């Protein structure tokens, strides 16, 4: 069936199956930042923004974003490049399979709060699993990123 939506600001029309998940449709169209880690809406690696709200793309049907705005890491490249600098500073990227999903959630966090508390940062990050780092370095990187320019 026809799906019309705005992918990173561009009006697109795709053919999707009625039972196709958004993660699959995006990857099928070369949006490789979608890393499917669990396919059961837990790990957070496939997080995208739908109308600016974080959503697990492995668990929503593609057709449900009809007419909506979907943002992936491909749409906020400059911002992610900057964020990754802080991850690099703290050694917070190891396998980075969680990295794109993490970038999206941090983008959403920044929109939600001007000066988030540690607890608010953790509340945002808690749904994004990282099996490599122990989170401490990521947490420090995120705090430094958010503090930049303040």
């Amino acid at each position: 069936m026809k799906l019309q939506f705005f992918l990173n600001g561009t009006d697109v029309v795709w053919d999707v199956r009625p039972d196709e998940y958004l993660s699959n449709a995006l990857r099928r169209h070369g949006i490789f930042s979608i890393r499917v880690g669990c396919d059961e809406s837990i790990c957070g690696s496939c997080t995208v923004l739908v109308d600016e709200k974080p959503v697990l793309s492995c668990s929503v049907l593609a057709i449900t974003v009809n007419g909506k705005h979907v943002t992936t890491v491909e749409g906020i490249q400059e911002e992610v490049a900057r964020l990754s600098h802080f991850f690099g500073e703290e050694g917070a990227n190891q396998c980075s399979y969680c990295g794109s999903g993490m970038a999206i959630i941090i983008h959403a966090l920044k929109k939600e709060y001007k000066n988030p508390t540690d607890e608010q940062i953790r509340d945002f990050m808690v749904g994004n699993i990282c099996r490599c780092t122990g989170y401490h370095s990521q947490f420090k990187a995120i705090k430094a990123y958010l503090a930049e320019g303040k």
Partner: protein
Amino acid sequence: MKKFKVVNNKTHSVCGQAEMMGRAVYTQDYEVPGSLVLKMLRSPHAFARIKKIDTSKAEALNGVKCVLTYKNVPHVAFSRAGQGAPQPSPIDKFILDEYVRFIGDEVACVAAINEQIAEDALKLIEVEYEVLEPVLDYKTAYKSKNVIHPEEGISQAFEMGFRPKDNVAASYEMEVGDVEKELAKCDVVIEHAAETQAQAHAMLEPHTCNARLDEHNRLVIYSSTQTPFHVRRIMAQTLGMPLSQIRIVKPRVGGGFGGKQQFHGEMFVALVTLRTGLPSSMIYTREEVFASSYTRHPMYISMKIGADKDGTIRAIDCHALSDTGAYGEHALTVFMIVGSKVLPLYNKVKAVRFGGRVLYTNHVPAGAYRGYGAIQGNYVLESAIDMLAEKLHMDPVELRKKNSMKEKETSPIFEIMGEGTKGTAMIMESCKLPYCIDRGAELIGWKEKYPRKQVGPHKVRSVGCAIAMQGSGIPFSDMGSCAITLQDGGFYMVRCGATDIGQGSDTLISQIVAEELMTTVDKVIIYSSDTDLAPFDVGAYASSTTYISGNAAWKTAIKMRERLISEAATMLEVKEKDIIFDGKTFKAGNKEISLFDLSNKLIYSAPQHQVAVTESYIGHVSPPPFMAAYAEVEVDTETGEYEVLDYVSVVDCGTTINPMLAKGQVEGGITQGFGMASTEEVIYNSKGQLLTNSFLYYHVPTCKTIKHLTTEFADSYEPTGPFGAKSVGEIGIDTPPAVLCNAIYNAVGVRINSLPITPEKILKAMKEKEGK
């Protein structure tokens, strides 16, 4: 500490940014569009024989290209362990077999033009099983009437106690001195036993691989593997193909932790692509990663430790049983590490004994997992040491300091026990364990906080500690190599076999080369782990990368520097010894040439040749990294719930080549080990079905699990390591079970002797204690 410019300095991961920005870098991203999709029919029975299998309806389904069963694949036993040769694991697996040995074992593989058709085809396969009685408890598996591997054609590459008719995958015994005699002489003897569970690796990228035939009609497989060269060798042997016809490429890997040392879908995509000529792809579902790949070996370990009144430990007696599940991947080698990378911590004993069996059961197979036996052994030994301290009325920190390994010392165990075979004697050229113990105690505030403080009506704070060691590769076994070419434009192309699975080996090898060639990391272009293009390396396991692959890179870079000086001397018509090279310019008296000009002249004018060097490294010792760990916990005495307020690690891994990545290895290991210690409960039902087969039921740590991590490194220099480095990939995971167990005991007086340590177990033990 020696002064370095690139190593031991902050360097960002060389791939971290591109990965985060969403580039196509992982195995799945390299799949040929339109590849056949592979799906596996898996056993619903813990143990059964396939009486009849009819795939005709599935094969007739439009879009199905190939169905594999045990009837149409080569019947050659192999080990999926992904180890060197001769393989130290039982050769006990067939690609597909008439028997299925755990719920989730492979029955038939379907390749179809899309996922839906493949799934539909699975439902059309008719299987008639003869259901057999499974063995679900490794403690009673020995000589059970139910034999898990009754089949012909399985073997061991050398004597490892493999007795399949008794359900024994491997066994091992060793003794130094006379343990019974020494224990009899001791003033104090404590006995302790505890059990560990089948932890899941839970790497975020599921196991995945894909295949295609290239322009030479060769088989090319992209795989999320830790061991590309071993995969090529074992695949060629098993499929009866020339090695030259296979290429294994490892792109960026989304975590491994040992779980991707073993084979996963490689044999299946290979067979499908060879048979159909079409590209194919196999991606495990998360449930398959949990229930149909590999786990940590569950173990039951008992210890007896004897000491004199003054706290001198005289003897350690350790006996272990290990559950390897349905197949014997890493059965022997993980088992031996329980002894060889744990017991030498207390090297002043007069006698030490270690032994036991690894048993087959009808559970998910166990395999390599970060820590590799050491975490199991450490949990039991380091709990027992605390028990001994209590009995001796000694501070557990003091008892450890008194008896543990120090610099220039050794342990007889090193010579006796290797990984599967005899070991290698070695002296600890670098061991800052005493410093680590002191510094950790200071950072956690041991003196003020031990053993406990009441901080609320039902809240108690306490501290716990443990020490650990690991290794740096397997001596005389693990080999790594590296090749460097000078490119026109004056930069270096580095090809190496070291396998980056997210731990950052590409970054630290770039740093090692840059340091030696006095340049910057951006002038070092690295390409790794492609069996066509990179020289051999065993792969990412046994904490071998920094030490073995790092030494190979260092040797190669030294050779390149010598070669450059020789080329410059010829070009400047001076003697080599007169040349001073600073990484950018070669100077001799008033003559000079830049590296940039030299590299261009070498290629485009005289003498027009490619400057290329290659070197290999094989370890002669395996210098252990050491650490001391402390945690402060707060326990709620009404509910048994607890919280970790801080986890302090002080680590001696020699020079940290990349301090931030080394810290990442330690902190990531701590958190993963803490998951095993606290929340990662593994539950099988009475039929042998793994119930904790999803992130929903299997709880890995989140960013809220540990409030704070404090990680420091000791000032240490390992003379045999690259720029003084030892490996650091596994050491972090070893301590959390013991540290948590000891801290909980110090808080509420109950010792939890099975993992994970849950609030439920704590509360139950507290109630039982009160009732007594």
